[in-house]
């Protein structure tokens, strides 16, 4: 019986290491969407492992699945690093929600003074909140303060079921990334 428990523990740890390893490799290979989806499949089993949760959360962040950060935010709390990352994720999530609300409902962001991050959502949030909103626009073009060749286009796209917020990153008029949030 004892041997059986030991073997099962060994197999469990081996399987777990394998999942984390595959997730790590997917992340390193920049297959963020795949890593996020794989992580979601086994999330409930490994939700107590903060390394796994962090890896999953960063994968989802890079794959633009921002809403999936909500659970990692609540789970990352044991270590200083985990808490730091939870704060980082929560700022991005909040800024995404506020920006979406502002674009659809005209919510004023000018008065808000929030922390910022290096994520594109934070950059666009900061630029949007400082821009004048005298009249409603179909799209907004923002230019990066540090690099004038970099610009961002922000607009709302009508989807099948819901309206989607789109951020397009441009470098010298060439679109480099398109992020879609809803």
């Amino acid at each position, binding site marked *: 019986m004892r041997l059986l428990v030991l073997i099962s523990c060994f197999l469990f740890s081996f399987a777990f290491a394998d999942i984390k*390893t595959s997730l*790590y490799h997917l*992340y390193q290979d920049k297959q963020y969407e795949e890593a996020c989806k794989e992580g979601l499949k086994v999330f409930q089993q490994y939700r107590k492992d903060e*390394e796994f949760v962090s890896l999953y959360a960063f994968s989802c962040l890079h794959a633009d699945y921002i809403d999936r950060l909500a659970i990692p935010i609540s789970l990352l709390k044991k270590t200083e690093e985990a808490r730091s990352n939870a704060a980082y994720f929560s700022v991005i999530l909040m800024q995404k929600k506020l920006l979406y609300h502002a674009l659809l409902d005209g919510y004023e962001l000018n008065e808000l003074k929030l922390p*910022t*991050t290096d994520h594109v959502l934070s950059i666009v949030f*900061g630029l949007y909140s400082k821009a004048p909103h005298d009249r409603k626009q179909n799209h907004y073009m923002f230019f990066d303060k540090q690099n004038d060749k970099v610009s961002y286009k922000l607009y709302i796209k009508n989807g099948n079921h819901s309206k989607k917020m789109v951020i397009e990153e441009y470098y010298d008029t060439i679109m480099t990334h398109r992020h879609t949030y809803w």
Partner: protein
Amino acid sequence: MLNIHELERQWLRYKIKSYIPLVLSIFASVSIIALLFIYVPLSDTIDTAVEITEVEPITAQVQTVTKQEPTPEPVVAPIELNIADNTQVKIKVEPKEERHTLVLKPSLHFMDNIEDGLTAFIEEEMPMQEPLTSSLQSNDTLAVLDDNENPDSTSTTEQTDENRLNITSNQDDSDLKDVIRRFKKNKNPALSLFIAKRYYAAGEYQKSYNYALMTNEIDKNIEESWIIFSKSLVKLGQHELAMNTLKSYLKTTKSTAADVLLRKIESGTFK
């Protein structure tokens, strides 16, 4: 007949005149007292306000000492100026209007633990494998293989050891020379990166640095080249330069490998 009314009027005038010096003296004294009240307490409050602002971070004991023995401080000049301006608000050390926005950054230290776990796992899996550098120094085993390398040019012998397949090569650096010749001809960054990796694996860090630098000059978007470049710099004892290189590279990209390497150099785990 005495004109009583006229006498009374005269008496009144006289009485009023007799009171004038008294009233004036009272008014003067009152105004002097008022002025004293205005100026003397004002200077006191300025002093205390300054003392509070200056001594605030210090302990209470130090505060009492400074109150008992007021020493000439460099804050005297501003106080005098402020008295002259008669503005108490300016004395206060106002916080800066433009507060710095808090910038949150992701922490990827947990990646190190995962990576350490992976390397430990690989070492456990392959305990028979010898270190790369020693195997290359003996020129018996070609440890690094790349797509660019021509498999036909190497005479490989396959040795099967139970379940493990070992590919060994008895050839020396002629293949590397061939790659260098090809690189000089077509300036392909993939070839220079391969050469840099080979030299790095062989422990020839100066050469690996040179080839990684060439690769970066041809194409600055190859992550692996920047990693080899920084690693070579560390091996050559240029830790600061390596860290600065990685930091500048991370400004333009979100390379996890570069970030992990930077943190390893900073923590001293990569030497």
